[in-house]
Structure formats: C-alpha cells, structure tokens
C-alpha cells in the first residue's frame, strides 16, 4: 500500500508545480502565515467570547427550577424581564446616571483636553499625568477608597463637615448613593476620556490654527470652531464608550453593597442584578436573558446616539 501511495503523492506535487505560477505558491504561504498570525486571537475570541455568548443565548431560552429541572421556555424569560420591576428600575437608574454623569464627565474631559492643548498651562505634562492617574487605579481599589471617604462615622468628608460645624451628609444613603457613584466614575474616567480627546486634538493640522490666527480668532473661537468640530469623531467615541460603561456598572454597586446593604438592592444596576440572579437566586437562565436584554439596550442606545449625531453632522454640512 505505502509503495503505491507514495509515488502518487509525488506525482501530484509535480503536477501542481508545473501547473501553477510561482507567485501563487508564495501567496498561499503568505495566506497560511496570515491565518497563523490571526489564530491566537481567533481562538481566544471564539472560546472566550463567541461560545459563551451562544451558550448564554441558548441558556436564556430555558427555565431551571430547583424542583422540576430544566424545561424549554421559549422567550418566557424575556417576557418576564419586561415586567420585572427590579430590572426596569435598574435600567431606569442607569439611564438617569447616563444623562447626568456622562455629560458632566465628558465636558470636564473636553475642558482639560482643550486647556492642555492650548499650551497655556504650565507643567502640562505633569498635569496630564495627574488627571490620567485615577484611571490607572483599579476600579475595585478606587471604589474601596471612595467607600472609606464617604463613610458617615469615620470618613474624612464627614469629619470635615463636622469640623466646620455643619451636619455631615450621609453620602451612602438612599438619596445620595447614585450621586456618590457618579462621582467615583467621573473621577476614574475623566482622565481616560481626556487622553482620547487630547490625542485627537494633536492630530488637527496646524495650518488651520495659523489661518485662524491671521483672521484674528481668539482662543475660545479657535476651540469652538476648529478644535471641537475637528475632534468630533473622538468625542462621539467617548460618548459611546461611556454609554456602554454606564449600563455595565458593576464594581461600584457590588463593593458599596457591603457598606450600605439596605441601599443597594440586588437590582441596583442591571449588571449587578444579572450577577445576583445567577449566584444568589440560582436562576442562571433568567440571568442570561437579562444579560442579553442589557446588551440589546446598550446596542439600541448607542445606535440612537450615533445616528442622531450623524444626522446632526449631515445637517451642519
């Protein structure tokens, strides 16, 4: 057998080499190399992202009971989510978070980016680093630190208020918790968004500024009419990132829960809700449905924002 096979194989190869132009073989080698280079990413992408995604999509179509086991449920979990006050409250809370926190954070980022870019700030390199530094602090550490700062009995903020003879605000109370979280997120991400905007500002052609200067435009005018329109795509990018980040808020509620268990309930944010459903309520299927719906909400909101900004851009042109 081996004897008959081996010559055959050789013949095929000869055949192929005669038939094909040399360049094609090179091309093939290049293709294989390309696939090999992409392979590590693809493996991780498929194993860590696509498969779990499909698996949780599959799970979300079932219900599992402690008594009775798993049964196919179609879209029952999704229907349940739409009438689940906890989930809806969480989404609503995040929407509120979005419309208040994101504009403040991005306005601050933009201000800092423009200020640094104007070249009129002394020690701009050190300042840039300083503003960026909170982003380098891991989110968990940041939340623990802020949780300590917010503490009513021992936190420095409360002590400061008492020192000047004012009543200390309970920053971890029901009314103030969302604001306290907004503060943490803003603190952590102002620098990050600033860097994106600052990098975009640096890439605006300097000829435009020279022209503006010749026309006698002030710094404010330059910022408003050249710089901000110039980095529009970068700003939209930060908006989209912020939307995604907001709806996925998890570290903050999860860690602050230990400090204020009665304020942060299981459904405080949708992501935290999905986690609690899966691990406290042992309802993995419903948690999967919530996670999918959350993804959908994020996609829709992001898309609407992108679409509306594009339209505005088209109108302006």
């Amino acid at each position, binding site marked *: 057998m081996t004897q008959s096979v081996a010559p055959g194989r050789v013949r095929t190869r000869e055949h*192929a080499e005669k*038939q094909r132009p040399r360049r094609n073989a090179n091309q*093939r080698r290049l*293709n*294989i190399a390309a*696939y090999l280079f992409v*392979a590590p990413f*693809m*493996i991780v992408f*498929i*194993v860590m992202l696509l*498969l*779990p995604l499909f*698996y949780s999509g599959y799970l979300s179509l079932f219900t599992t*009971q*402690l*008594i*009775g086991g798993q049964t196919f449920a179609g879209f029952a979990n999704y229907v349940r989510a739409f009438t689940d006050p906890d989930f809806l409250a969480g989404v609503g809370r995040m929407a509120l978070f979005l419309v208040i926190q994101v504009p403040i954070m991005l306005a601050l980022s933009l201000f800092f980016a423009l200020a640094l870019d104007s070249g009129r700030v002394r020690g701009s390199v050190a300042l840039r680093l300083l503003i960026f530094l909170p982003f380098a602090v891991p989110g968990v550490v940041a939340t623990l630190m802020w949780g*300590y700062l917010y*503490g*009513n*009995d*021992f936190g420095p903020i409360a002590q400061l208020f008492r020192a000047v003879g004012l009543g200390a605000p309970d920053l971890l109370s029901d009314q103030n918790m969302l604001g306290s979280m907004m503060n943490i997120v803003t603190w952590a991400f102002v620098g990050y968004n600033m860097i994106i905007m600052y990098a975009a500002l640096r890439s605006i052609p300097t000829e435009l500024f020279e022209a503006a200067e010749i026309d006698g435009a002030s710094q404010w005018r330059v910022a408003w009419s050249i710089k901000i329109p110039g980095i529009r795509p970068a700003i939209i990018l930060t908006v989209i990132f912020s939307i995604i980040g907001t709806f996925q808020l998890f570290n903050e509620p999860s860690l602050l829960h*230990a*400090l*204020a*268990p*009665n304020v942060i*309930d*299981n459904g405080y944010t949708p992501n935290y809700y999905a986690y*609690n459903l899966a*691990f*406290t*309520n*042992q309802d993995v299927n419903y948690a999967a449905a919530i996670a999918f719906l959350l993804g959908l909400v994020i996609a829709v909101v992001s898309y609407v924002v992108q679409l509306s900004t594009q339209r505005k851009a088209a109108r302006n042109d």
Partner: protein
Amino acid sequence: MRKKAPRTAVALGTGLLAVALVLTGCTGGGGGTADNTKPVSQSDIDKAMKTPTTLTFWTWVPDIKNEVALFEKKYPAIKVKVENVGQGAPHYQKLRTALKAGKGAPDVAQIEFQYISSFTVTDSLLNLTPYGANDLGDQYVPWVWNQVKQNNGVYAVPQDSGPMGNLYRKDILDKAGVTTPPTTWDQYATDAATVKEKTGVYMSNLASSQAGQMLGLLWQAGVKPFGYDGKKGVTVDVNSAEAKKVASYWQDLIQKGYVSTDPDFTDSWYQGLANGKYAGWLTAAWAPVFLQGTAAKTSGLWRAAELPQTPGTKPASGNWGGSSDAVLKTTKNPIAAYELAKFINNDPESTLMFANKQFLFPTLNSTLKDPAFVDQKAEFYGGQEVNKLFANISTTVDTKFDWLPYMDYAYSSYTETMGKALAAKGDLSAGLDAWQKALVSYGTQQGFSVNK
C-alpha cells in the same frame, strides 16, 4: 485545487471549534457518584484508609491545616488538600458551580447549618448513615444534631455552633445604674430606656442587614418560620403572629431610639463596637472572641450573660451561625471523605484544638464539658468564664428549627424587605409580610409546593 486556502481556513476553523469545545468542557455532565445505601463494613473502612488517596477539602476555617495534620498523622495513606475558596456566599457559589459543571467539586466541604438543605435539594450531599454517622448522634448537642439530620439521613458532621447570649458593656450599664444584666425582655426594654436616658448610648444594635441575628431571636421565641420535607414541600411562615410579636417588640425599641439598626460587619459598625456606641450586642457564642479582636481597647469592660427571657417559660435561646462538614456525592472516595469529616469534628484532640485555637464554639458534648475549654477565664470579660456560660446556653436552644432549601435567596431578600424596614425605623410587621411574599413567590417559581 484553487480553493486550497479557504479549505485551510475551514480546517483551521473546525480544529478551533474542537479545541473550544474541549476547553469549555462541553462533554455533558456526569462523574461517578457514590450513592451507597448498604452499610459499609469495618474491613471496607480499613481498606479505604490504607489506600493512598488524595482528598480535597473546601473550608474557610483559618489554620485548619493543624487539625487536618492530626488526621493525616493517623492515616498516613490519605493526603488532604485544603482549599479556601472564600467565606460564606462566594464559597457556596463556587461549590454550586462546580457541582453544576459535574467536576471540580471537593470531596468534603464546609457548609453552614442553614445551607445544608439547599444542597440536599439538588441531591449533592452524601447520606452518611451507611458510613456509620448515626452512631455519632448521641455525642453531639441534640439541637445541633437535628441540624445535620433530614428524613432519617445524616448529611454532615457538625463542626461549630452559635448559641446566642448577650454581650454587654458593664461600665456603660453601671453608669446608667443598671447593675445586673436584664433577665427578661420587659426588663431589657426598661433598661434600654434608662441607658439611653443616662448615657445616650444605644442598648444594642439590631443589624438591618443580618437575617441570622433576627432568625436567632425568632428561634429563641419558639417561632418556626421555615419547614422543608426533604422533597417538594416547603413551609414559609415568617409573618406568623409569634414572629410579629417579636418584630413589634423591636420596632418599639428602635422607634424610641433605644436600639440602632446599623448594618453589621461594616467598618462603621466595628467602630461603633469599639467606641461604645452600643452598650451591648445580642450575639452568638463565636462573638466573644471576635469582639476581642474588634474592640481590643475595651478589654475588661465587657461581660456576657444569657439572652433575656420570657417569664413563665423555661430558659430558651436561639442559634446564629455554626457549620458542619459534608461529603459531596461526587466524591470518588466516600469512606475516606467521611472519615475526614468525622475525625476533625469528633476526635477529642482535634475538637479541643478547634475550640481553643480557632475559637469555633464546640458542638461535641465532651468538648463542651472539657475543663480545658469551659474553665478558661476571659480577661476581656473581666475574668468571666464565658465558655462555661455559652456551653450552658447551648443546652437551652430549642431543638427543632428547620430551614428552607433556598436560604441564599431568603437572606438576600431579608435585606431587601425586613432590612429596609429596619433601616427606615419603619413598620417591621409590614417588613415581615413583604419577606413572606418574596419567599413564597420564589419558592413557587422554583417549583416547590409552598405551604403558607
């Protein structure tokens, strides 16, 4: 021939998929289970204990390696891998995940009393009666033994417990003119008013995040909030008239400002204990040592007493906390696993070490009488024999108290219903109603037939 490149891609793709499936473990559940109803003979045991075996043991008890070392010394063929995968909730989550995945679960795991039925409902624990667990019954405190027993099966070996008493600041009570700790609940309320009036200090803190403490107090009052028949039937009765009586007692003290409702085990609560914000703490037998670490600078100021009682009834107490070691059904070495759970919680040397070194409050009668344990005088409590006090309290704990097979949810929903009412100093009776509603609806949704 020309389609060579895409074909490579396909091959690569299928290869990846295969790898992926292997990696994600999509091979279906399984794993051999050791469900044995025949009694195990002594020769089986001897053989198993001489066969080289490695056991995995998940527990969060600090320094438990020392007790395990005693076991390994007695059975040199058995090696035990002790793993701490988290304390409380994270521990159970990982355990459930491993059980669901069908592999990766330990042979022996620490399980608190109230969570045992949430593992028997999924049929994850090995019934230990064929391995001889029934013979152990007499050696443990009766109420403790009931905690690990279910429908004639024994599902774990008791490790530690938390009968409840009253730790109080003698100096603060003295300052208010209260020279003896309150012995009845009525006296407790009167003293609370005096303490608040004279010193401005809270009599104690009823934590708004702590179902365990409230359940312990209900336990003392003879309330039976939960029931589980081991199969489909659960009983939820957290808003019974008796439970509401307890709730309204506390509501009164809270609304008058005598008792605070801070969440416990938080930084500000630790500070409160250390700074004299609370004149006392109704707590469990594990707390005296815990408090020494938390409020070290108040050493000598504290005393321990029994819980206040209801006049005309025999002395009673409840339990808060306490755990056991269970053998998981997925184990390949049930005999060795059971022997490990038994040895560390039954061997006199090991249990005394638990009691005196790790300060786990004993469950074994002999340890509870051991002079090396009960005769200790605690400096922190002004030389009081605190262990002896709690050992006596342990005998007064009501022997029957069941749990739901979904206590994870019960505890978290407590915080969202009763906890909110406590934190708001509001209507606790309505809080119990809301808790009842949540527990019933969850139970129904999980397929139990709920008896209200």
